[in-house]
């Protein structure tokens, strides 16, 4: 390997990056825009569930119950309904995602039998929202029951029970306010780096083939290893720049608490960037058409990184075979490291396993990449 040839190769590649300002602009702007869109857009905090009320009784009791739904602040009551037909209509049009029906004999049944039912119909299409809304509704009803029971006991002169209350105070560690932003943003950094990295290198060799410059490249004395390193080095710096940008934005703009060891994080970031670029490079060597390379890059980076890295969907909740598959997803380890360093304040000793996984991945990818490219024209 000759340093001079390597530098020449890296210089050629840098010139090519420099002379394609659109691609460069995208590589540099992408983190900014993605951080803003994803940082703000990804939230599961459901407030003010649109609710329709179908109060068939219009009694003091039923109105008190409706009042409680409003007062809880979790729901916004958008409509009063009257008939079954309009419940179905409201649900179809999505005006509300829940309808609370208070039957016409609600307070009579409550007074005579001691228990009465309130029917809630929920649009369960979005299961997560439904579960959260149902939780809110159960809270409202539980509170109401307790108050009604106390009133009832008072009226009937039943002795107040001497049972205490369970004073349950949850303590949340690592992400005290349970902000989804603190959970999402570190993951977003991994996604951005993976996407940029793959996008930067996955067309780099196939482009030479399609444009016919490969013959020129092969006719020079440059070796396969020099081609690989020369192509990866400039992009490595672009990737590191993006990573630095994302880290700064996460800490100073989005106020994600940073509690861990910066050196560990930087080492992991460098490893991860190397893996991502290496995978892109291997794809581009193996698939000679740019369209084909782009499709494979989308399949091998976008999908696993967004779905199997744990960045939005918790890996522990997936079926076992998919969990096993996720062990192959390099982004998974980086997401783990990012979250641990940011929120848990972990250092290198806590993160030996994921870092080792990244090291192995990087070594394997560099080995494959070094042998993938052959100076042959067929």
């Amino acid at each position, binding site marked *: 390997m000759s340093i001079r040839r390597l530098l020449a190769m890296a210089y050629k590649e840098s010139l090519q990056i420099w002379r394609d300002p659109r691609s460069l602009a995208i590589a540099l702007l992408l983190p900014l825009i993605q951080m803003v869109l994803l940082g703000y857009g990804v939230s*599961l905090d*459901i407030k003010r569930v649109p609710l329709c009320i179908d109060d068939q009784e219009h009694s003091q009791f039923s109105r008190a119950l409706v009042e409680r739904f409003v007062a809880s602040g979790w729901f916004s009551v958008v409509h009063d309904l009257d008939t079954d037909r309009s419940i179905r209509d409201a649900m*179809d049009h999505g005006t509300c995602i829940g309808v609370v029906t208070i039957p016409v004999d609600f307070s009579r049944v409550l007074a005579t039998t001691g228990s009465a039912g309130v029917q809630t119909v929920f649009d*369960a299409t979005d299961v997560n929202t439904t579960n959260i809304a149902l939780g809110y509704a159960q809270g409202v009803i539980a509170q109401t029951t307790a108050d009604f*029971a106390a009133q009832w006991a008072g009226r009937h002169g039943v002795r107040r029970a001497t049972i205490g209350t369970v004073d349950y105070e949850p303590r*949340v560690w*690592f992400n005290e306010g349970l902000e989804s932003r603190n*959970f999402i943003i570190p993951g977003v950094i991994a996604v951005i780096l993976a996407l940029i990295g793959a996008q930067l290198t996955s067309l780099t060799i196939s482009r030479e083939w399609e444009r016919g410059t490969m013959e020129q490249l092969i006719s020079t004395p440059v070796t396969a290893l020099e081609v690989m390193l020369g192509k990866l080095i400039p992009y490595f710096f672009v990737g590191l720049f993006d990573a630095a940008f994302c880290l700064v934005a996460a800490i100073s703009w989005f106020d994600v608490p940073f509690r861990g060891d910066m050196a560990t994080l930087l080492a992991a970031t460098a490893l991860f960037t190397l893996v991502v670029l290496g995978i892109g490079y291997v794809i581009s060597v193996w698939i000679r058409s*740019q369209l084909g390379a782009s499709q494979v890059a989308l399949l091998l980076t976008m999908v696993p990184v967004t779905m199997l890295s744990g960045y939005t969907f918790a890996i522990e909740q997936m079926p076992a075979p998919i969990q096993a598959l996720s062990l192959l997803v390099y982004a998974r380890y980086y997401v783990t490291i990012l979250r641990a360093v940011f929120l848990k304040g972990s250092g290198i000793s806590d993160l030996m396993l994921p870092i080792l996984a990244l090291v192995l991945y990087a070594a394997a990818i560099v080995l494959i990449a070094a042998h993938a490219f052959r100076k042959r024209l067929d």
Partner: protein
Amino acid sequence: MLRRLRVMLMKEFLELRRDKWAMFRLVVPLLIQMIVFGYAATFTVNHVATAVLDLDRSQASRSLVSHFVATGRFQIVDVAATQAQITRDIDAGKADLAVVIHAGFARKLENGQSAPLQVVVDGTNSNTALIALGYVSQIVAQFQAEETRKAWAAPAGAAPPQIAVALQERPWFNAGLDDRWFFIPGVIGTLTLVQVVNLTSFAVVREREMGTLEQIMVSPITPVEFILGKTLPFFLIGLGDVVLITVVGVLWFHIPFVGNPFVVVVGTSLFLLAALGMGLLMSTFSRTQQQAFALNFFLINPFFILSGFAFPIAAMPTVLQWFTLINPLRYFLIVIRAVFLKGVGLHVLLPEFAAMAILGAVMLGLSMLRFRKSLD
């Protein structure tokens, strides 16, 4: 015109056929993604790894712990002996939740005092933590109600208060609250968008980069014919994609399809129109395939995240909610979920259809204008 269009289409399909891996790349990744996405996308929270520290060792504390186990939502991974062990479990990620019952819990409860129950949760995954805490508060409420009932029944003579309001829950459209039913229709839309936009955005740029665009320009073909010839094959591929992965969704994942297939076909056609418009517009902004690809990566992720696929649009800041209005995926997801699960008809979905048609018309029109300009 028709003859020239036919020739153009023949050329496009020939190009596709000559790339022997093209068909493979169109079908196999799609199927793999459908299966993996289908299993991976879930917000269900089950088997939360839980550590328990019971310092009270009373009947009440044991009963509380058994309430946790009985729900099936929590899986006890460690019965700790000290507070330090709990801390270690959470720190090391062995447990995501810890329940600590302090000594004197039962005594305080019996004496009518407040009995503190400490619950520690790892908040790193805020969503899981939030849902797990919801389960905890339900369990605590239930435990409290049972203990209260027992205490009330105890004094002789006093009738137990029977007053209770019950919440009868009727989840419509997805009675089992299976969130796969929510995600799989979304996966169909997302995969189709990614595939079609990627293919289309490369279509024109490739000709430009390879220098064959000039050959086409000297032929008598008009810009409209050229665009039609470029987009029609992808329209057909897109339709095929939707059919293929819908069949997988129904047969493999057993997602109910209660609606009218015709409504899906109309909705898909309009959606594809918008996706084609998006891809073409991107290709008019790119000189090289590298640029088209970069744009693709740049845009696909926000379009995916800001579509309501997983994250409710209602939970986004207002400005981002406006942005979702130009996202064809947003409308298609509403359509496909409504048809799959609710079985609603055409008339209910008219606003979504109109939005996709307008988006498609605007983007196709814009890209035709830009394309004509680049020809001059």
